């Protein structure tokens, strides 16, 4: 156990004991869901079902059902794909990068952030599998031996790098999440009394016992997985950005894309974590663990990444002018003043101006304001991807191919469906899984608990 400076604010409020933490984390699992949960679940499930309908319709009639057209062949599908993958990045960042930096405040939020990562990657996967047009042939994305004259996918193409990056990212995230979950499932197994629940959780807990040898291996595995996930998370969104950056289209063909996409991803991911955590702490009464200080820390990450995104936007504009390439200049002029300028200015307002409001301490410690702003940021980040993709494809090199774009109800339906799916999964998760990594949280109780810190101050050490 390490003593912690009194200057640091406590991360666990009130006079909690180890038993209290167990009770608070298990309460949503053992207890009955309240009305608010059922209302949210019904809305999300309805959205999800509508999405499944639109998805089936697309598979039935083909992607002609979408608004995408000859010029604008990537539109809502890839916008949504990049948006969801970006949202996923915060989970890995919180659990991996903050672990490497020994940030204790990650412990209250990492479990849910990782769950969010996995659900967001699932949503993203829907768009990549559908956008190929014939999803039943998607196995051709993988380098499988075949009878077509042994034709292999092109390993020089960022689109194939993406297949490998996303598959690695999804599976490694699930494994990282599950390994952390095992001790917490064991805690639930040892606590629940209903025989059916006991059986399910003992199956899920893999027989965990918490011996010193196992804990020492557990910590080593967590550390190495964090070390592997950190470059992985940067590589994933860098590769996603290369899907655009390695093309020759003005507006896409820029070397700034990888860092710009990665910081944008972390920016939107943290906003989504905030949206979810502010609901979770209220619905499940976890205010003692997910404190205002946690929210403030996340808001600081939002200022930093939001500012990087802002600088990237301005750099793009500057480079378009400074490069002297008239196509590049036109692409940006078209984004800012063309027919879809409204989208550009929504993006600019939501992503560049709004996070700067968090410089005021009063605003970044206000939960209501944070909640609203977290949604604003995600709207902005959706528009960022839309602005990069659609206006660019509407105005490419050949004016005779210039085009416009309107989404159809199917585009909207699938997008709403993925949002529904995301929240459906998250709501189910929050009632059956330990939403906070309680084992890790117990390990910081002595150093970072409010009452424990007070006692340490009184005893003068």
């Amino acid at each position, binding site marked *: *156990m390490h003593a912690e400076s009194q200057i640091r604010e406590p991360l666990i409020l009130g006079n909690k*004991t*180890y*038993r209290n933490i*167990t009770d608070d984390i298990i309460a949503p699992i053992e207890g009955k869901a309240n009305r608010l949960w059922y209302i949210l679940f019904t809305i999300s499930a309805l959205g999800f079902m509508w999405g499944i309908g639109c998805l089936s319709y697309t598979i039935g009639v083909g992607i002609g059902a979408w608004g995408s057209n000859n010029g604008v062949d990537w539109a809502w599908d890839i916008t949504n794909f990049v948006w969801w993958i970006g949202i996923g990045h915060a989970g890995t960042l919180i659990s991996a990068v903050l672990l490497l930096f020994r940030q204790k405040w990650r412990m209250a939020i990492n479990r849910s952030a990782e769950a969010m990562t996995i659900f967001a990657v699932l949503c993203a996967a829907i768009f990549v599998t559908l956008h190929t047009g014939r999803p039943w042939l998607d196995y051709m994305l993988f*380098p499988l031996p075949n009878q077509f*004259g*042994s*034709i*292999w996918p*092109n*390993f*020089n*193409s*960022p689109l*194939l*790098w993406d297949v*490998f*990056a996303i*598959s690695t990212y999804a*599976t*490694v995230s699930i*494994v*990282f999440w599950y*390994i952390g979950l*095992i*001790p917490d499932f*064991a*805690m639930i*197994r*040892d*606590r629940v009394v209903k025989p059916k629940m006991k059986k399910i959780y003992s*199956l899920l*807990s*893999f*027989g*965990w*016992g*918490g*011996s*010193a*040898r*196992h*804990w*020492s*291996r*557990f*910590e*080593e*595995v967590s550390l*190495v*997985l964090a070390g*592997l*996930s950190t*470059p*992985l998370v940067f*590589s994933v969104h860098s590769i996603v950005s290369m899907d655009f950056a390695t093309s020759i289209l003005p507006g896409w063909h820029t070397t700034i894309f990888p860092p710009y996409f990665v910081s944008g991803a972390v920016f939107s991911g943290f906003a989504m974590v905030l949206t979810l955590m502010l609901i979770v702490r209220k619905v499940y009464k976890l205010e003692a663990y997910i404190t205002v200080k946690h929210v403030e820390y996340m808001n600081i990450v939002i200022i930093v990444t939001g500012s990087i995104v802002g600088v990237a936007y301005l750099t793009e504009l500057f480079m378009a002018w400074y490069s002297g390439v008239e196509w590049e200049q036109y692409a940006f002029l078209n984004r800012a003043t063309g027919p879809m300028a409204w989208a550009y200015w929504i993006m600019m307002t939501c992503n560049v101006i709004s996070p700067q409001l968090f410089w005021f301490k009063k605003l970044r410690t206000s939960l209501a304001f944070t909640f609203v702003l977290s949604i604003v940021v995600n709207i902005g980040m959706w528009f960022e991807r839309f602005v990069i993709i659609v206006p660019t494809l509407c105005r490419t090199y050949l004016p005779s191919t210039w085009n416009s774009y309107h989404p159809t109800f199917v585009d909207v339906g699938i997008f709403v469906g993925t949002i529904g799916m995301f929240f459906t999964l998250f709501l189910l998760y929050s009632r059956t899984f330990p939403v906070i990594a309680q*084992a*890790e949280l117990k*390990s910081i109780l002595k150093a970072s608990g409010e009452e424990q810190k007070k006692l340490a101050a009184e005893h003068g050490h």
Partner: protein
Amino acid sequence: MITKNIIHGIFSDEVPLIEACKKLRSSGIRINEVYTPFPLHGIDPIIGVPRTRLAICAFIYGLTGLGLATLMMWYMMISDWNADIGGKPNWSYYFNIPAFIPISFEATVFCAAHGMALTYLLRCMLVPGARPKNPDPRTTDDKFMIYLELNEEQSKKADEILRSEGAEEVNYKGTLVIEAKY
């Protein structure tokens, strides 16, 4: 033939448990295992748990992944069907290395992470359906336990130490008969 007592020393806090472990070890008693609700930092050297070699495994798995990815891309792009895509022919691996770096990296991470996770689960015998390994279910909640297997003489000494260090309970859970092997 040796008869040993199985002793569970239960604590409600980790600090006295660590103190008790130190005392037990210094009086020559072997600590079989310690069960705790969360990882106790610094307990491994006290109770004599060697550092795990899982990280070395991960490194080897990573190198394997890198090797497999290189072999795959060399075979598919260079050897089996070297296509000329966009005026960029795939005639040698060396000239195409920049394009192969991302997948080499992903495969390294893929194999290192999954290989290590599987090794960890199997090494700890954590498999679906396995029996709970903690002898007392309270140790995943808020209790800390020292698990001992000792002969009569040592049992008395251990009992004394455990109680004086503030163990809440010292439970005797039957005996263990160890047959001489030769």
